[in-house]
């Protein structure tokens, strides 16, 4: 007995070493050109290259040692634990969930409501600016966009690669209508949503006859067309210069956040002049908008139209045989999703004070879609978690100064954001192929509400 385990042990080590060396070789091959060689412009504007063997060595070492440790120690350990669990008869899926698990949503909401004040308490007024704006507002914008796209992709199963177009329509609606006509944020917010929805219908009508890959390609093209129109229609949109000096949102018309205004919010409340309060106000606006999106989505799912969307994702032909007009059903999904994109867009314009076509590139659509897929298509909670991980993660990577100690002073973590983003996605997809929340909540039940396993739901094909 002892003999065999020993034998196993040495066999395992040999395997771990072999796989470690192999992983190192692959890493060497992959990163040789990406990391090992760097091109830059010298003083004479000539493109020259230099090598970074040290950094390359670090990459290769991380891959090789990581693989060695995984194969040699982590995996056997996990297997042993699983075996032990199976022996004692404790099932992996236990019915009892922890307190945190059961009340996750309530806890999250309370935390979000306190978040700006917590940030202020902990890091002070100026320090909290970053946490409220770069993390809080930024993440919530993506949560809202992803929840909006979720209606189109997650519920109705229509693969839309040009969602950012509606975000752009919302942003430019606010930017242009407020600068040309001086309308207020609170009037333009619903208007931007309606305009975006209208565009959703206009674009959707010809496009939604297509299915699957074709739909994806055409929506992608529409996203680009909107961006190109924004760039080239210089008379109205000022092209690549963008629209600047966009009016701030006011406190429901009662107080203004403009520094010079007579009814300035900070003055009225005797607060020191700081932009933090405006950011906090914006934080609560986007939080409310997110809640609205979630509320409408949850309500719509239980309405016939929401069920029809999900049925459409499952089987379009069966829908038609049941008398469901698939064209109008798809259009409503498209328009509803677009409307939330439009709301988010007008909020974005008000927060930024500046919009340009740069903000509405295809990468944005891809990131939003990635959040929806990672979160688990259709699940609001999963998508919110994915947005926190993805957007918060990329923001955090800007701060990873300590990485410089590992990879040397030349290492700029910002530049590797997208690489790490991709890596994170691959890891999540390997371990959670259906996204963070893979199950689906039924919209009606007879006796008990049982979550539907993700293995039964379809991704849609149209």
């Amino acid at each position: 007995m002892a003999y065999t385990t020993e034998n196993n042990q040495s066999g395992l080590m040999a395997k771990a070493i072999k796989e470690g060396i192999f992983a190192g070789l692959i890493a060497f091959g992959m990163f040789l050109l990406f990391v090992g060689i760097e091109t830059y412009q010298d003083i004479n504007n000539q493109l020259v290259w230099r090598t970074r063997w040290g950094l390359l060595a670090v990459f290769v070492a991380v891959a090789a040692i990581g693989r060695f440790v995984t194969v040699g120690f982590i995996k056997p350990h996990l297997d042993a634990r699983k075996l032990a669990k199976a022996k004692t008869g404790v099932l992996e899926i236990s019915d009892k969930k922890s307190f945190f698990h059961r009340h996750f949503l309530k806890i999250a909401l309370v935390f979000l409501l306190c978040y700006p004040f917590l940030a202020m308490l902990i890091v002070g007024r100026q320090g909290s600016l970053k946490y409220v704006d770069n993390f809080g507002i930024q993440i919530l914008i993506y949560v809202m966009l992803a929840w909006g796209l979720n209606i189109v992709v997650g519920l109705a199963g229509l693969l839309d690669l040009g969602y950012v177009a509606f975000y752009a329509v919302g942003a430019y609606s606010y930017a242009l209508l407020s600068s040309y006509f001086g309308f207020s944020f609170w009037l333009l917010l619903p208007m931007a949503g309606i305009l975006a929805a209208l565009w959703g219908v206009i674009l959707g009508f010809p496009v939604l006859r297509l299915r699957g890959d074709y739909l994806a390609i055409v929506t992608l093209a529409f996203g680009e067309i909107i961006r190109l129109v924004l760039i080239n229609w210089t008379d109205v949109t000022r092209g690549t210069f963008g629209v600047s000096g966009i009016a701030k949102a006011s406190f429901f018309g009662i107080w203004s956040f403009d520094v010079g205004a007579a009814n300035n919010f900070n003055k009225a409340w005797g607060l020191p002049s700081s932009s933090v309060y405006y950011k906090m106000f914006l934080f609560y606006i986007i939080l409310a908008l997110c809640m609205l999106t979630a509320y409408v989505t949850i309500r719509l799912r239980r309405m016939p139209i929401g069920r029809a969307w999900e049925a459409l994702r499952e089987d379009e032909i069966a829908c038609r045989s049941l008398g469901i007009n698939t064209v109008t059903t798809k259009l409503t999904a498209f328009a509803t999703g677009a409307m939330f994109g439009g709301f988010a867009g007008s909020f974005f314009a008000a927060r930024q004070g500046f919009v340009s076509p740069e903000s509405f590139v295809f990468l944005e659509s891809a990131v939003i879609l990635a959040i929806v897929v990672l979160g688990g298509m259709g699940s609001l909670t999963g998508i919110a978690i994915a947005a926190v991980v993805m957007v918060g993660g990329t923001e955090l990577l800007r701060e990873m100064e300590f990485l410089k100690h590992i990879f040397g002073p030349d290492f700029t973590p910002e530049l590797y954001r997208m690489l790490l983003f991709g890596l994170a996605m691959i890891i999540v997809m390997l371990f959670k192929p259906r996204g963070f929340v893979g199950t689906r909540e039924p919209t009606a039940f007879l006796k008990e509400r049982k979550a539907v396993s993700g293995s039964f739901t379809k991704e849609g094909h149209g």
Partner: protein
Amino acid sequence: MTTGTTTMTKETILKVEHLSMKFGGLMAINDFSFEAKRGEITALIGPNGAGKTTVFNCITGFYKPTMGMITLSRSNGKELLLERLRDFEINKVAGVSRTFQNIRLFSGLTVLENLLVAQHNVLMKASGYTILGLLGLPTYKNAAKAAIEKAEYWLNKADLTDRADDPAGDLSYGAQRRLEIARAMCTSPELLCLDEPAAGLNPKESLTLNALLRDIRDEGTSLLLIEHDMSVVMEISDHVVVLEYGQKISDGTPDHVKNDPRVIAAYLGVEDDEVEEIEEKLDKGIIEEGAV
């Protein structure tokens, strides 16, 4: 409503006239005419590839026929030309619903949800096209309750009540077939078209299916049925139409069709001389001939 199955001369519910369907060079259906009577089970049978599913697809709007006229008479006296309606209107306006040869359920929705989706149009209207429903008006709440009751009724008939909250994709094959029929019935159709409902069922399941189909007929829905399983066809149908290579080769009561030498030939795939042999036997009265 017509609940009985005998005596009184029955009106026609579906009339197919000179139907032809061409796929490129292939004449899948060639000048095919038949009638289905209200309150009856009409079976459409024929060898593989005869064009039965294609006839269904023409009737239910999934194909536009190359030629021909398909008339549906509703119980309120309205006559509708099905080939002019759009696919979803065939169910919504004409009251024709169908099932599919390869089952098409919403597998990620629960059994109950499948039956609620089928009541989409009724619920849509009750919810004021979503807007009134979002406001939480009682009309919608009542309609939603009624929809669940209707779903329960059909769950009970299809013997699926225990599985109501499970995903449809999790059901056994036979249960999925029954669910598809229940779902089609939830649209309150006047004519129900079933494409091989007994395919893949074991003999016991086949028997319960027969009972279910008779039940549906007795409640006033007419049935049009494609079936290979002769035990089902002969047992429950009132009228049989036989199709081969897109053409009608026989039409009549089950007994008549069963003994039609052309049908026997088509089904057994016998040589021509054997057909003659059978015909000779018929002439001599060795095989009893059914009512003509």
